[in-house]
């Protein structure tokens, strides 16, 4: 339950083996390419390269193909493969099994491709161009359709001696502008229709021929999009549509004939194209990695991040090619602060689905503690307390179960939240909103309904208690994160560190003492409150004093103090709002029973049983959909605003193993 430990591998080998080594590295799908090369000398480990050169390999002449060239060859070939597969109606997919089995080279792939091109290339090209033509004609047809008066003959306007015309569209904001300056325009602008597919208006612009250049520039300034109707279509729009329709028909027939002529070889070609596609993708990726590699006199090296547990897999893959390689392993600690290792969260079956909630906020940095386990517990508790019901919880549980196959994380989340809701349903004694009064057999720890006057204060207080516990955990996590990063100023003396927590607890204790729940003298919490506030304000000089850094203030004392006093005021306000915020947990628990009570009252007014049941059913559906959503949002809000702010650093880079896509 943490963030996966990563190590940086420098893989060193002979340029002669580079191609095969990189191929295996890609196919093992365990290595994340280190992109952070600009960070000064942190990654330089030339010793390993020199050792490799002197001990394992003797200098020699190695020829490596220019990756730039391979890349452009792959690009061109992939274009033709895609064109061919489009024409043949094949969907291309990455299939690792094709690649691991064969040793088909780029050259062979190119040759096979040109053979296919030679035999069916021309016909496929024709099919594709005809398909494109169909799309263009359909678009043209749509535009012609948008002209309401289909009998206008544009041919007549085009025959005018002194005038020219254009049909097209322009953006909405320019419409108002054109209107305002209409008297200065040298053209007539008329709206002639609306295009349904793009919800744009179609305009015709008519202008004297002598103002052509002027009008062109003007149209450009309003983002004019000219609509060109090829001259071969004659007559009015309705006649043109007819001509287009018959042309569409004939093109479709042509496609049918062409497709039939290539049908016989389709299966063979399909297999070959699949293979070529996969090889090209692989070669392209290898070329990309070659560009990232560094070269010594007679060795190459590449830096990749690997999970600690994945070193063996990578080594095994590399060693399958040659034994003349060397892998130097460095942990992120050996590399200093400038280096950012990628993050991959690692959680047990219970907390795994809650990674979704954490990632929605941001990806934790490698050096921080993964908050997912904490979120899993507090989220379940918050949701359960606010939405405790055995029956409704079971509905969520079931929905999660069904959803799990299609959307694993969301399904898992619903299962856990549903279960939590059922557990708290047993505490409140609630089954689809019905309570012990209606169903005496349901389990329940409360004496009576949650809404009974004895229970209300208890539920509200338990909401706040939950808040105090959740915030305490957040402060601990925040402190641990700062200390882990060596930040004593924030970790010990900062507002989310130890003294921030002392301030928070003193604040709570002051209120407790004021109300008289616990009998302690008021002066005790007030004193610790004030001391911690002073420490919060003076955190930087204190931290510098302790760690022996000088000067005590990193900037001028005046501006530091102004800033930190204001920050202290903000801390006071946010502590207040943080604590009050958790009252909602209790309030929503009451609201849950209250909402059902309303439906209960309405149902009792109904004259017969079926209607009563109907009202209760509608009530339950509304509660399940609407209130469930609100409670989910409230839980998210509590976590994102009140808790994450205390410990979350974020800015992590996702661990993305190199693989074909």
């Amino acid at each position, binding site marked *: 339950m943490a963030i996966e430990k990563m190590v940086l591998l420098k893989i060193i080998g002979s340029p002669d083996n580079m191609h095969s080594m990189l191929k295996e590295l890609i196919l093992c799908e365990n290595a994340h390419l280190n992109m952070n090369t600009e960070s000064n000398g942190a990654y330089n480990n030339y010793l390993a390269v020199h050792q490799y050169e002197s001990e394992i390999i003797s200098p020699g002449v190695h020829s490596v193909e220019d990756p730039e060239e391979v890349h452009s060859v792959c690009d061109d070939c992939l274009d033709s493969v895609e064109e061919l597969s489009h024409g043949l109606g094949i969907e291309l997919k990455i299939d690792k099994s094709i690649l691991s089995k064969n040793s088909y080279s780029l050259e062979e792939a190119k040759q096979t491709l040109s053979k296919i091109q030679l035999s069916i290339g021309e016909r496929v090209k024709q099919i594709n161009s005809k398909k494109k033509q169909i799309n263009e004609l359909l678009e043209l047809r749509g535009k012609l359709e948008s002209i309401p008066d289909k009998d206008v003959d544009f041919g007549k306007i085009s025959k005018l001696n002194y005038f020219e015309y254009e049909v097209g569209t322009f*953006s909405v904001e320019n419409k108002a502008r054109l209107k305002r300056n209409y008297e200065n325009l040298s053209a007539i602008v008329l709206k002639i229709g609306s295009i349904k597919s793009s919800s744009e208006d179609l305009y015709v612009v008519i202008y004297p021929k002598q103002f052509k250049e*002027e009008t062109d*520039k003007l149209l450009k*300034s309003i983002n004019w*999009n000219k609509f060109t109707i090829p001259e071969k279509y004659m007559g009015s729009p309705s006649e043109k549509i007819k001509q287009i329709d018959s042309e569409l028909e004939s093109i479709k027939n042509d496609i049918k004939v062409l497709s039939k002529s290539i049908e016989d070889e389709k299966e063979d070609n399909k297999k070959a194209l699949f293979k070529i596609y996969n090889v090209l993708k692989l070669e392209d990726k290898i070329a990309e990695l070659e560009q990232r590699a560094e070269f010594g006199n007679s060795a190459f090296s590449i830096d990749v991040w690997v999970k600690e547990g994945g070193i063996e897999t990578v080594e095994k893959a590399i060693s399958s090619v040659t034994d003349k390689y060397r892998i130097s392993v460095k942990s992120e600690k050996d590399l200093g602060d400038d280096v950012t290792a990628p993050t991959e969260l690692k959680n047990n079956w219970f907390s795994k689905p809650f990674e979704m909630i954490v990632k929605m906020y941001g990806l934790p940095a490698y050096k921080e503690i993964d908050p997912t386990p904490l979120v899993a517990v507090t989220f379940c508790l918050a949701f359960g307390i606010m939405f405790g019901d055995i029956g409704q919880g079971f509905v969520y549980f079931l929905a999660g179960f069904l959803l799990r196959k299609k959307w694993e994380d969301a399904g898992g989340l619903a299962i856990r939240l549903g279960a939590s809701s059922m557990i708290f349903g047993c505490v409140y004694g609630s089954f689809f909103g019905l309570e012990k009064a209606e169903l005496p057999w349901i389990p329940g720890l409360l004496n009576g309904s949650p809404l009974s006057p004895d229970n209300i204060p208890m539920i509200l207080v338990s909401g706040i208690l939950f808040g105090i516990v959740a915030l305490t955990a957040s402060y601990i996590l925040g402190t641990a994160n700062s200390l882990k990063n060596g930040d004593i100023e924030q970790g010990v003396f900062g507002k989310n560190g130890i003294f921030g927590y002392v301030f928070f607890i003193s604040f709570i204790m002051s209120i407790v003492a004021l109300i008289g729940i616990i009998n302690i003298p008021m002066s005790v919490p007030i004193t610790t409150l004030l001391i911690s506030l002073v420490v919060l304000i003076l955190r930087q000089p204190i931290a510098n004093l302790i760690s022996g850094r000088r000067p005590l203030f990193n900037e001028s004392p005046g*501006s530091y103090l102004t800033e930190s006093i*204001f920050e202290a005021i903000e801390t006071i306000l946010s502590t207040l709002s943080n604590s009050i915020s958790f009252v909602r947990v209790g309030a929503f628990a009451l609201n849950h029973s209250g909402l059902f009570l309303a439906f209960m009252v309405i149902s009792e007014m109904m004259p017969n049983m079926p209607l009563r049941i109907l009202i209760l059913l509608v009530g339950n559906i509304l509660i399940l959909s609407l209130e469930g959503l609100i409670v989910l949002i409230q839980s998210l809000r509590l976590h994102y*605003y009140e808790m994450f702010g205390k410990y979350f650093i974020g800015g992590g880079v996702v661990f993305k193993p190199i693989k074909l896509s």
Partner: protein
Amino acid sequence: MNPNMAFYAVNTKIAAKKGRILKKEDWNKYIESTSVEKLTEIFKSNVEINKAFRESGISSVNRDSVEIALNKLKTVEIEELLHYFSGEYKEFIRTMLMEEEISDLSLVIRKLSREESLNEVSERFVHSKLFTTVDFDDLLTSKDVDQLIDKLKKTPYYNVLRNLTGEHALKREFHMEMKLHVVLYNKIYEAAKKLDKVDFNAVKEIVGLKIDLLNLQWIYRAIKYYNILPEEIFNYSLEGGKNIDLKKIRKLCYSKSIKEFKRLARGFLDYDIFQDLNAEKTGDTEIDINTAALSYMFNYLKDKRYYNIGAAISFIYLLDVVINDLTSITEGIKYHVPKEKLEEYLAYRV
């Protein structure tokens, strides 16, 4: 989160940042430094300005690389400010980052239209890598303007650029620039409409003023240097100004001479932004009308106090002034311009 509550923190943070950036002793040291190397050292000793140098990760010291680093200051500062906002307010501040994105986009289009190599362009990029809406890595693989525009589909910029051709981008650079600005300010206003009324009014005031100044610069340049029709000038100008609405813009576009334009502008702005233009002396007007506009902006914002989103916007626009001034200083130091002369070119008078 109640956005008003966060303004305490934002305002303090901004006040502190402003104090550090505009520290008089530092500025005196900048102007008095004797070489670009020394100037860079002094820049780096300033906590705020050093952030831009860290972000750009430059190691060599020359005028060009210093300017590249300075240009990143605004992005770095906006990214930091974003921590203090949430919800619609965060979205709004994020739209302010589009200006840098547009500047990088224009740079790529310009390079492509001039058929220059895109190899080292990414080093000059100033946009926020965290919040960009455009895949710049993909854009850099374009071979010409058409391909680039095609790659912009699904971005807010596509609609205004779709009929831009390479030749057009080369000969009429302003077309692209002004159209991209239309998108920027549309987006800013769109995001601002979701804010509270007080905040929306602050946007209308400050962003409106910026638009006024941009329009004045555009029309001034169009009349003076480019041979464009008044209708075109009008169509390219921006909407949403504070003092100069479309009606007034129209009057400015149709002014018969620069003299008439200046007279009208003076009247609309209630201030003569052309008074200090040493353009007539140096002939280097493009830079100078920009400095004059920035200087006006600076003086306007200098004494204003906002207890709403205005504080953040005015800080962001202040950074434009600062970056322009620091760039001028770097150039001045490089070419050994005397201190008194150099001060004349700055919007921020120490």
